[in-house]
């Protein structure tokens, strides 16, 4: 059996860092899981061996915890993590570079790091007509014994919903639950994030006012899980940012906010708070970084004041955040020109987790 060594590459910030030397009084400080995240690097000689039987093997030194079986011929994007019985189940869209065939697949990891093989749970090929020939960007949640999956269809045409009893075989609904409409969605909708709330299902998604243009984040809700009503925009590109000298500067997410992932959490005082990780870009050609925002009502979100929370020299998109084993795990899609593309992982295990979701 192999062993996978973990190397820490980078800290994601220190807004809640601990200072003060050797004196007591600073152990187990509350940690919301916003910062600091440190990226995981696969470093072992036999990296990729897995307790669940891996034939998906990121190369030693790989920045990815999950890559498609054919890294050169396929792209994996927009992961969605679910903690199920202590395991982390990671869903992601996989697209064949040539031919454009798309599937949604899942992989499991007992420790959240060493993932087994990808298994297809839903494919565009052979699917209903409303798939529009393409599916992706899954957002999977547990609703009691049932698994729910929202996913993008038709390259921006809409968002569909599928259900499953076992998290492996998903049955899509009769049609999309949301299709792009109106000026705010004229450029398409996608990247859904699904939340099972006390008043029903809540769907967060990105929308573009023009094709290829900047995205903003919107929300729709459904008491019955069938009919969704739009609640409007919840986050637009950042404005009114100041540099350290107090002078106006371009916000890190001024151009576009994308790929939301919302979680409904409970604070240590029992209060409900909506957590939102998302990707942002400062300009049309700028790289994407990850930021955090939160809301008490799920409608008006406040940005974390030390954003971005994950900022590297490469593109990071599509965050998915779970709490597992006393650590916050942040999965994201990452593009590296030299090492390819895949799903990366950053871990925040500072202090004691203070929010549950």
């Amino acid at each position: 059996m192999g062993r996978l060594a973990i190397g820490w590459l980078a800290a994601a910030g220190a807004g809640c860092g601990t200072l003060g030397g050797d004196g007591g009084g600073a152990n187990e400080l509350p940690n919301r899981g916003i910062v600091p995240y440190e990226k995981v690097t696969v470093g072992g000689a036999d990296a990729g061996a897995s307790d669940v039987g891996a034939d998906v093997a990121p190369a030693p030194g790989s920045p990815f915890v999950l890559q498609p079986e054919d890294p050169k011929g396929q792209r994996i994007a927009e992961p969605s993590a679910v903690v199920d019985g202590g395991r982390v189940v990671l869903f992601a869209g996989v697209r064949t570079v040539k031919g454009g065939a798309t599937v949604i697949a899942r992989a499991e990891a007992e420790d959240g790091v060493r993932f087994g093989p990808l298994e297809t749970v839903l494919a565009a090929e052979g699917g209903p007509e409303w798939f529009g020939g393409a599916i992706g960007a899954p957002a999977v949640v547990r609703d009691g014994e049932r698994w729910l999956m929202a996913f993008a269809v038709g390259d921006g045409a809409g968002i569909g919903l599928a259900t499953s009893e076992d998290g492996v075989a998903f049955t899509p609904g009769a049609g999309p639950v949301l299709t792009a409409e109106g000026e705010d969605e004229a450029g398409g909708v996608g990247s859904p994030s699904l939340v099972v709330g006390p008043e029903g299902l809540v769907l967060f998604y990105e929308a573009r006012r023009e094709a290829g243009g900047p995205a903003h984040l919107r929300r729709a809700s459904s008491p019955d899980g069938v009919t969704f009503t739009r609640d409007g925009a919840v986050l637009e590109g950042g404005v009114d940012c100041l540099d350290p000298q107090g002078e106006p500067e371009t916000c890190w997410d001024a151009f576009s906010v994308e790929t939301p992932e919302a979680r409904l959490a409970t604070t240590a005082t029992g209060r409900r708070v909506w957590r939102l990780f998302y990707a942002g870009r400062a300009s049309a050609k700028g790289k994407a970084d990850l930021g955090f925002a939160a809301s008490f009502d799920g409608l008006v979100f406040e940005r974390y004041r030390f954003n971005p929370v994950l900022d590297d020299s490469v593109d990071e998109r599509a965050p998915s955040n779970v709490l597992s084993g006393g650590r916050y795990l942040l999965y994201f899609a990452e593009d590296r020109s030299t090492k390819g593309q895949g799903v990366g992982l950053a871990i925040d295990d500072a202090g004691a987790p203070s929010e549950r979701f």
Partner: protein
Amino acid sequence: MAALSAGLALAPPPAAANPLDAFGFGARAMGLAGAGTALADDFSANYYNPAALAAIDGLSLDLGYTFTAPRLTLNGADLDVDQSRGFQGGLVVPGTLFGRRVAASVGLHLPDRLVSRIRSLPQQQPRFVLYDNRPQRIVISTSLAVEVMKDLYLGAGLTFLANTRGKLDIAGEVSITDAERTTLLSAVDVDLQAVRYPTFGALFTPGRHWRIGLAWREEFNLRLDIDVDVHGDIMADFDPDNPVVLLEDGRFLLQSGNTNLFSPRQVALGIAHQRDAWTAAVDVTWQQWSRFPAPTATVAIDLDLGELPFQVPPIDPPEAPGFNDIVVLRAAGEWSAIDTPGFGLKLRGGYSFEPSPAPDQPGATNYVDGDKHGAALGATLRVPMAPVLPKPLEIDLAVQHHWLVERAYYKDDPADPVGDYRAGGRMVGASATTRLRF
């Protein structure tokens, strides 16, 4: 030839401060839950009421040890707040002067681990603000007391502390291309500036049954100031014969001030009633926490690098903590179970309630505290030691338990870095003191 000089402050910890507000002074006072303003009858009067020293009969020498172990939690997780422990004791020397009772005394709390601590954490880092630095310090106080008229005693005490300010000056030549051509000289300049912290007391003992005490303890606030002053030229020796001066008369000045060793101004009123073998006492203490300064370093930076494109971002001053004045209540009872010329046994117990001076923390600061209930039990055993000692040996023992009522903190900003949390806990302490009377 380039030259550079630098100033850097050295900052040894300050000499003294006061943990006695938190856990008490002496085993008897601990057993009374701190209700000592009217009842102090040993070295602890240096803190509780210096006037009571003049009412003590005979010279006495006390030496003991005290220990308090906190378990203070955020969201149920122990923050591992440091213990407070150390030797306590004192000497009381009574006498008469012009027919009036007088007394001089010295009291000491000598921690065996940390003589003092100044730790200035970022304001957003949660900390139990009253138990972070406050219990970790030495206390040395001296007092004088006099009977000004029958049954009326006045006393005053002083505790000497020290603010710290110092500099390490560095001067020399710096070459960024040839380290061997860099030379530096240094000098140290440290000042310990005296701070006097007075205590005044009055004790009125009408009849045999009543004791009424009043004490006033002045606030104090120790400072630790750190300065860094670097100025001079920087050169590049690409050609040793023609060095290039990259920066002439550049300067970096950092001034840092810490004001987190704070004890509030206090006025304490105590009333005790003694009847047969029983004594009951009540203490009410007002504490002026509204003057508590931000326990976070203030930093000012001035950078002048000429044409070089470097700037230092401005540093926001810490927010005012906005603490509130409080009134602390203490009640205690004591029973003389055995009272013979040789052996004696007194049992005592007390209760205290200290509301938290710390307000809710909805913003950037996280100064954590909670209402505190305290319960204490204690005993004094008196045993004859003749002929080794002229008077019996007294041994005071006490245990106390403080509960910090769990408190929920809610943040206004849903994206606050720390978020909501719950804070509470307990502190368990014990103390033992032996007393020799002469």
